[in-house]
């Protein structure tokens, strides 16, 4: 049985709890960003660009049976780290689970500043777009 969205969030919170200061957290985040599997260049289309980010962010989703899988990339490595966590939490879950997800881990790991609605930040837009994909897939069912 695969982990639930909340189980993965709790796992991430536990991982970040190991770090004492912000610099260690960010080094880990940067590391996650660097390890994010490369997105196929053919998916880096204008259509897949998320608007409203200072760096370009691409997001693509596809359905595999009952679950939705996400692929994403960004020019900025911290954004990639955030993406990597969102993919880990949301990918391989059903559209209904993704739509219902309450992403409390972002605040708990001390990254809520990235949800601020400034033009320089795309985390909020990313979450919204992931849920939009889930919504579109659930409408197809």
């Amino acid at each position, binding site marked *: 049985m695969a982990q639930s969205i909340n189980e993965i969030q709790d796992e991430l919170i536990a991982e970040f709890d190991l770090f004492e200061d*912000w*610099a260690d957290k*960010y*080094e880990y985040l*940067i590391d996650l960003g660097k390890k994010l599997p490369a997105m196929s260049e053919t998916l880096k289309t204008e259509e897949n660009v998320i608007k409203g980010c*200072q*760096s*370009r962010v691409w997001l693509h989703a596809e359905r595999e049976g009952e679950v939705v899988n996400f692929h994403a990339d960004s*020019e*900025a*490595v*911290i*954004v990639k780290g955030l993406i990597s966590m969102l993919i880990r939490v949301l990918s391989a879950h059903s559209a209904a689970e993704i739509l219902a997800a309450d992403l409390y881990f972002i605040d708990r790991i001390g990254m809520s500043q990235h949800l601020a609605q400034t*033009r*320089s930040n795309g985390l909020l837009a990313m979450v919204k777009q992931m849920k939009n994909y889930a919504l579109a897939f659930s409408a197809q069912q």
Partner: protein
Amino acid sequence: MGSLVDIKNVRADFPVLDQQVNGSQLIYFDNAATTQKPKSVMDALAHYYQFDNANIHRGLHTLAERATTAYELTRAKVRDFIHAPSSDQIIFTSGTTAGINLVAQTFGRSTFKAGDKILISNLEHHSNIVPWQMIAKETGAIIEVIPVDDIGVLDLVAFEKQLDDKVKLVAVNHVSNAIGTINPIATIISLAHAKGAKVLIDGAQSVAHIEIDVQALDMDFFVFSAHKLFGPTGVGILYGKRELLDQMPPYQGGGEMIKEVSFSGTTYNELPYKFEAGTPNIADVIAFGAAIDYVKSHGAEELMKQEQALLAYASDKLTAIPGLRIVGTAPEKIAVISFVVEGIHPQDLGVLLDKFGVAIRTGHHCAQPLMQRYGLVGTCRVSFAFYNTLEEIDRFIVALERSLRMLG
């Protein structure tokens, strides 16, 4: 380390500087976006609301008279500050952008014909591009762009060739917000005038750093924002030559801008009120007067020397960092440094520096055509004011090197 101004006292005038951000002492290096405000500006604002708040120009009572006098006193201070011939050529707007739009929609609409040219430069902020594109579309005028070279200097040879009798207006910034170049506006203005073109100078980035004399430079229009000159947001200035302002139709209709209204017709008020429809931003205009007093009392020239010292010091320190390249190295610059680091996205540096308590700007700086010219998605920009110190630059460099190690 020596300072030209009494830095300790100066910093005490800006309470916002004395705070911890993310656990570190704040270093505010985003002065090109907006400057901090001295306490005297905040006091003027509070004093106005506490004692003098009234609508201006119409009321006969004492508060209305006090508010009107204070409001008009700022106009006189601005006139003096930019050496305008007369206070009624100083028009209050909401900011630089509003001033440019006003000129585009009045002077532009009544002057431009199909095939006329508007010359802007490759260094412009979007607010000195888009208003001209809008009026060009309506009137059939054509926009041409003065090119910029690899180090950020405008190509005046190309400019001279572009200047012909079709050019009705040249609209350029005095200083580039993105890379700090000080443009040779005296030359630009005299070349343009020789061909019969008018010139609008966007002074948003220069007014806090360079002495402005609109008459000596023979400017036709000069626009700037109070908030980049240590004053409040929501106040801007449009200066114009009298014959141009007189000819221009009003922009917005409403109260204040009329002499007589009847349903058969309306006669407009005289300058500057013709362009100030509705109740203006009285409180912030009055507080802006305190900002001008502040700059004058410290000697604009001394403050500028301090900034140039910061610019030279920071440029040297940044140049020594491997992989770092300064974008825009014009010989004449204000204290703005744009830079990129090989293999690092500016946004990542901005996020980490903020965690170290350093406020810088990253991105395209609302100058996308300039970023395109240099093939960049954006830059990191540090911009200084006289209250910044060499010690802050040292701490910034340490934070920057640490951030680069984290990202590398």
